[in-house]
């Protein structure tokens, strides 16, 4: 069979489809978005009735996936690393309930923060939940790990985490498919206590999870994804996980002279690590993200065998690797043929020409121009975060999904006179509704701008779960009808927008302004398909 040319994300999706998937649950987030999009565009999702609609946020996604697993079917749940924080409550407890149908949880990390607020390492969450973690080094492994991951999940009785990073998610390569499996039949746990985490049951379930740890370790030690490659030069042993392995091998095209332990499955394979520690004079750890393996090997005391990695300066502490960073650490000379000429300037991302967020920020800037430090603008996660950059320089914060409204409220509580929140429609329904409820319950003097482009823009225009419902949601939460305004952010409405923003800033209670105009990217896409 000819190989399929797939992004890492697409390989994950294809593997899930081939492994008898019944539903994918996700909220868009770079670099995980393309997994769900691939399933949505696959004919099989329609013919085989595979669930693939977007969830409102990562927590609802995780819970729905667990529900599907409860009913005996195989479920995939996908999110970016910071989404794991949102899903954490459900995720941690799903490890305690365990599963019925196989559940693969994909966490897509973004080291170097190409499109994120931090570079947290999801392996810690997998370890925290005490479940097996798989970490592919290439697209074929991503496929194989998901295909086998469902099996592993059902065999272990817990969700299995697949941890990937941006480069793998968004790099394309040839992938060989495996035979298609049928979906599971609807069936339930024989243990009526399994999913009822009352303390008495939870203690039993937790003990089961603890007892299973030795099995998870055994599977890791026997896993084909953990491989020991012998090497003649034992002055060093190298432990390389995920795609970090590739950067090592790129520097040794004729083969690495040192023994290499390639890690693709956790818990860490203790026997293989012992073998390397006994054979080699020092260990070098190559891992994308935080120094998880390095810490595990080094411990707090740092006595015994020397362990090198991100913490002793052998490699940089932050950021993703590349062949040059790894090559330099191993003493290779990196060619400096030509520098970047001075004429080359930075080209930061910017709001599209014609975007409604632009009109919103122009109006907001004018409305707050005379307020100086009495006004702060709390923003959120989405395209409109680009309002931080010139020419707008409109916003003072961007922290996490939904934080705009609640931080504005907190600042109001502290005495700030004119707190303004700017949040997008999709972010509002993801995590802003409860924030608004908090503000309304105290009638906090904040002005909330829900900049509604009727899509999830930054990730490429996915459906937004609040489209057509925002006014009803706001009114239902308790916004006074006279302090809820819907505007069309266009040049011709500029003066009216400025006037209404000013008017609501002067109101000493919670108000909501919704500038609404469809994202010009999604409009363009629709026109192209016409």
């Amino acid at each position, binding site marked *: 069979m000819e190989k399929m*040319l797939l992004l890492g994300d697409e390989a994950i999706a294809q593997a899930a489809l081939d492994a008898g998937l019944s539903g994918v649950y996700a909220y868009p987030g770079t670099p995980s978005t393309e997994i769900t999009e691939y399933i949505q565009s696959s004919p099989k999702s329609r013919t085989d009735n595979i669930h693939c609609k977007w969830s409102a946020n990562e927590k609802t996604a995780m819970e729905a996936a667990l529900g599907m697993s409860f009913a005996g079917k195989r479920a995939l749940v996908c999110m970016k690393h910071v989404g794991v924080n949102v899903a954490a409550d459900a995720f941690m407890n799903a490890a305690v309930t365990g599963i019925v149908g196989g559940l693969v949880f994909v966490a897509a990390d973004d080291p170097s923060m190409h499109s994120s607020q931090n570079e947290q390492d999801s392996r810690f969450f997998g370890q925290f939940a005490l479940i097996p973690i798989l970490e592919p080094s290439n697209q074929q492994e991503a496929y194989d790990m998901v295909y086998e991951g469902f099996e592993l999940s059902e065999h272990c009785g817990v969700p299995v985490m697949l941890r990937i990073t941006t480069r793998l998610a*968004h790099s394309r390569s*040839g992938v060989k498919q495996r035979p298609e499996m049928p979906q599971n039949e609807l069936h339930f746990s024989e243990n009526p206590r399994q999913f009822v985490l009352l303390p008495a049951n939870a203690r039993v379930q937790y003990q089961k999870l603890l007892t299973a740890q030795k099995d998870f370790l055994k599977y890791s030690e026997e896993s084909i994804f953990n491989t020991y490659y012998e090497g003649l030069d034992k002055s060093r042993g190298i432990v390389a996980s995920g795609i970090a392995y590739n950067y090592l091998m790129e520097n040794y095209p004729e083969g690495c002279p040192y023994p290499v332990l390639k890690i693709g499955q956790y818990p860490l394979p203790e026997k293989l690590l012992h073998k390397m520690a006994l054979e080699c004079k020092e260990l070098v750890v190559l891992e994308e993200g935080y120094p998880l393996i390095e810490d595990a090997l080094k411990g707090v005391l740092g006595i015994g065998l020397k362990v090198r990695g991100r913490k002793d300066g052998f490699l940089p502490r932050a950021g993703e690797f590349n062949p040059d960073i790894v*090559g330099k650490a191993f003493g290779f000379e990196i060619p400096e*043929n030509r*520098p*970047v000429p001075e*004429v*080359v300037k930075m080209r930061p991302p910017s709001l599209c020409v014609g975007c409604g967020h632009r009109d919103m920020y122009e109006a907001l800037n004018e409305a707050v121009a005379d307020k100086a430090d009495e006004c702060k603008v709390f923003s959120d996660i989405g395209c409109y975060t680009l309002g931080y950059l010139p020419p707008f320089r409109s916003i003072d914060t961007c922290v996490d999904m939904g934080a705009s409204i609640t931080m504005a409220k907190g600042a109001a509580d502290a005495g700030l006179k004119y707190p303004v929140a700017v949040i997008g429609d999709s972010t509002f329904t993801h995590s802003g509704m409860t924030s608004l409820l908090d503000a309304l319950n105290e009638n906090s003097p904040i002005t909330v701008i829900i900049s509604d482009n009727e899509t999830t823009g930054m990730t*490429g225009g996915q459906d937004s779960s609040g489209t057509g419902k925002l006014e009803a949601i706001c009114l239902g939460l308790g916004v006074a009808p006279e302090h809820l305004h819907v505007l069309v952010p266009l040049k011709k409405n500029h003066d009216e927008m400025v006037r209404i923003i000013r008017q609501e800033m002067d109101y000493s209670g919670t108000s909501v302004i919704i500038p609404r105009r469809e994202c010009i990217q999604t409009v363009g896409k629709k026109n192209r398909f016409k």
Partner: protein
Amino acid sequence: MKTDIIISGVGGQGILSIAAVIGEAAVHQNLYMKQAEVHGMSQRGGDVQSNLRISDKPIFSDLIAKGKANLILSLEPMEALRYLPYLALGGWIVTNSTPLINMTDYPDAEALQKALNDLPNIVVFDVDKIAKEVGSTRVSNMVMLGAATPFLGIDYEEIESGIKRIFERKGPDIIALNLKALAAGKKIADASIHI
């Protein structure tokens, strides 16, 4: 064979469609291929690149190391220069000459021209102009790809059949237009190489 290519441009210019044709041709020839793309925030008008690697041996890294790229293919002249540290000695640059100015401190035309002229192996041409002559600016990226064909390490005929496969459903007229664009681009590059 082994060819490392950096395709560069500005988010929204559609560099991925070029990579898709090369990738299709490479996989069809049973070559190994890896192609790293940029998705997410930078796609909003920021600088974007794709690392495309083709080889008859397995490829490890998704990213190209410094000084190893055989070709920089750029849809925008300033963006062609951003990746110079990655170009191998003797490597080629094929770039569009039309700037995309969505920033306040874009270099002046003369300074940019000088920086481009300083490079020994470079093909600079107005892609849209050639595409218009061929029939439509919609095939600009195929003109660009055509200009890259002498440096790919893949036979021209393989690229042609890649285009035929990708546009199969769009009908013979669209295929013919894209092939014409490809040929026009190749002609430009051939002329530059022989100078």
